[in-house]
């Protein structure tokens, strides 16, 4: 094979990396290079999205594979052994150089490095750790690094990776074990979970150590995350929500990403070759939000799904679906209800609820006051009691749904 230049390699190895949904650069510690050593900073809280692609996804990190050669043959993966995709491999120094030259032009927050498995799991992991080491030690890089770890790699290597990286992740790939067996026969759900458990332990240990010794090294300060593919196996939304909730609880994950399975070039016939279920993916993210920020339990989110099919409605969001099934708790009085109750009102976000709680110490809220704090009062009205408002006919679902459900739009040509 002819030698490829860096730009050609980048085209191949970025293309190969795009099926990973995560691009977060948030939640790490605060760092800066104000001392004029090295380069880079992290905010500690919010990440920065430096561009958006026409797929609506944020571009925050340089997201690439070290190589797209792989000894595994996972059907859903464009890089599987049996695929005819063009192969390439970066050297560690090429990745380091690319990262720095993009970073210095303010294109990115840092690097998200993943890799196909070449040689052995340990060999591959060593190469990835070397990239992170060189960035941190040779170039004093203080931007964000996310490394994808390899389940079978030696825990000592993962330990090292965690010292350089802000975030580590391992993908569970599919929401069901039977799906994993069918689509990724060489991967093992047990090994993946073991690896996540080890990372969790390392993070806890490092946090404990820092409580005792300020100089103790940090380990993956932005935590760990995972991803599952939606629509390639038989899992229902209910299955996925419960699985995600178990993952959050068992492994202290910062995020679970959902990736609608999309057709890949040179696909395996095992797979559904359909347009990716983007609305379904969106509803799953919304349900994830309900669990993380709105105090819903996973069982409550599942209750928003259809009892028979286990699927969340596509035409309305899960919060509204839950509310329509739980009429008895509405209407909620904006002037009296506690925070948890207000958070259940469809159309009231976390910020609006905080504003309502602050404002009502000063005045009895009328509908017009609530309107100033929210986007659409029309959809909220049936669920609220305000000083000058009490909804009258909140009796049966058939009447309410057309009022609060979004109008059906003609689909965008490229939607």
């Amino acid at each position, binding site marked *: 094979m002819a030698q490829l230049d860096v730009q050609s390699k980048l085209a191949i190895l970025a293309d190969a990396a795009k099926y990973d949904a995560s691009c977060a650069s948030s939640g790490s510690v605060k760092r800066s290079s104000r001392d004029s050593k090295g380069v880079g900073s992290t905010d500690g809280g919010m990440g920065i999205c430096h561009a958006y692609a*026409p797929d609506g996804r944020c571009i925050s990190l340089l997201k690439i594979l070290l190589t797209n050669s792989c000894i595994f043959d996972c059907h859903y993966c464009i890089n599987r052994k049996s695929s005819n995709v063009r192969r390439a491999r970066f050297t560690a120094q090429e990745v380091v150089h690319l990262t720095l*030259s993009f970073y210095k032009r303010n294109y990115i927050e840092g690097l998200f490095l993943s890799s196909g498995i070449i040689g052995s799991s340990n060999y591959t992991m060593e190469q990835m750790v070397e990239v992170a080491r060189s960035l941190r030690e040779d170039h004093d890089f203080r931007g964000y690094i996310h490394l994808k770890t390899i389940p079978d790699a030696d825990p000592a290597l993962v330990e090292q990776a965690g010292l350089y990286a802000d975030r580590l992740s391992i993908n569970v790939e599919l929401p069901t074990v039977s799906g994993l067996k069918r689509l990724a026969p060489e991967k093992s759900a047990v090994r993946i979970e073991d690896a996540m458990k080890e990372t969790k332990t390392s993070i806890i240990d490092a946090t404990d150590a820092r409580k005792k010794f300020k100089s103790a090294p940090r380990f993956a300060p932005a935590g760990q995350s995972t991803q599952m593919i939606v629509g390639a196996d038989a899992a229902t939304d209910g299955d996925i929500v419960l699985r995600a909730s178990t993952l959050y609880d068992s492994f202290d994950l910062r995020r679970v990403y959902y990736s609608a399975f999309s057709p890949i070039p040179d696909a395996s016939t095992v797979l559904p070759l359909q347009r990716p279920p983007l609305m379904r993916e969106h509803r799953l993210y919304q349900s994830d939000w309900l669990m993380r920020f709105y105090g819903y339990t996973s069982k409550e989110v599942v209750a928003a799904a259809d009892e028979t099919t286990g699927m969340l409605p596509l035409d309305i969001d899960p919060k509204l679906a839950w509310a329509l099934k739980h009429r008895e708790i509405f209407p909620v009085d904006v002037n009296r209800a506690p925070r948890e109750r207000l958070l259940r009102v469809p159309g009231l976000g976390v910020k609006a609820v905080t504003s309502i709680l602050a404002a009502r110490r000063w005045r009895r809220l009328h509908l017009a006051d609530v309107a100033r704090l929210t986007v659409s009062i029309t959809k909220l009205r049936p669920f609220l009691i305000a000083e000058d408002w009490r909804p009258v006919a909140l009796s049966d679902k058939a009447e309410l749904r057309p009022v609060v459900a979004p109008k059906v739009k003609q689909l965008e040509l490229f939607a």
Partner: protein
Amino acid sequence: MHRVKLAEPDDFNGWREAARGLAVGGVAPADVTWQVGEAAVDLFGEDLPVPQSDAPAFSVSRAFVDLARKAVLHSDPERFALLYTLLVRLRDRPGAVDDKADPLVRKLEGFAREVRKDIHKMRAFLRFREIEEDGQGRYVAWFEPEHHILRYNAGFFLDRFASMHWSILTPDLSIHWDGETLAEGPGAAKGDAPAGDPIEEVWKTYYASIFNPARVKIGAMLKEMPKKYWKNMPETALVPGLIASAQARESGMIARARDEVGGNSAIAWDALRDEASACTRCPLHANATQTVFGEGPVDAPLMFVGEQPGDQEDLAGRPFVGPAGQLFDRALAAAGVDRTRTYVTNAVKHFKFEQRGKRRIHSKPGAGEIDACRWWVEQERLLIKPQVTVALGATAARSLLGRVVTIGKERGRAIALADGGTCWITVHPSYLLRLPDPAAAEVEFGRFVEDLRVAGAGVAGFEN
């Protein structure tokens, strides 16, 4: 009239000093004008001095100071006066800044929000270009902020790029960092910034490659990266082309995969059946004996979809082996269709029944069960890719077409399916078994055979 001259449009300290004195002196908001720099003439008569007052100073909450710091950076000329109005109100009601529903507070919070957004977008969308200067690189950016945020944002770029030499040029102001001091200069023009940087081509390659053409969401992109920012971002030049070619690239991927049926269809079908054997997508799995998956060659050009397995199918684990299946076989033979070259399956793959004593009585699957099981039928169709699919009965028709179907109305005509191939609708063979009148049953059997014959004839190369 009191006139306050502020040094710069983002002069928070100047505003604070003046506002504090005026508020303590009891000056009403309507009696103050605020201006930045020197205004030519004063249209409103002479300037009054700030009244001396013995009134004690008052303190304001941190929340107000934070709000004011941001709102002062806004481009709206009213910002200083509005903030002063709120400050005067705080003298009597110190917590009024928390009254989020108040129109004035809301307006100023809106200012602060827009400023924060502008600050964030500048950090995100500013692009440096490298030039050679005194033997080392200098990174220069041109940016057009909406509000007066450049000075405020300098700290961010210092935190990040203190080891580099850089300049940020905007229409009103420019700042320069030489590794030691931060210098200010006058506003600049776009042409003062470098026109390009060779690395931008590499960056564009990345931008184009990380985009997934199978999931175009233009609205989501525009919401976060509105077009007003595009002109100073090199990668956005690629967007129209990426969108234009996306659909062709996606359908190309699907079409190619359809044409080149891989050698692993049979393996894929085995894997699918194995996965289906553990299906719990709907509650029917609880009482049924087993999943009854489809059966037949994976390259069958003709596919039949029935309703659901019956008592005998449930026990045997194979479709169409009970009385209705036997009648179906007879009809196929009469229609001259070779059963060994067809794929038969059911819309619902578990037996739904009511227990009556020792007997299990067939019970019609509901819409939810059909919808839950449709995933499997779709997977089967994706693998088999039949030219013609025949729906036997209303349940099958609902599964294939995704809507309620009246058989009498739609029987006997070809219906195009969204994923390619055609569909014919006829009755389920068990319907024929239930007809009490033998003569009527005879007539209906004839119609059924005719439907099967027509469907079979629609398959290319499917000669008797």
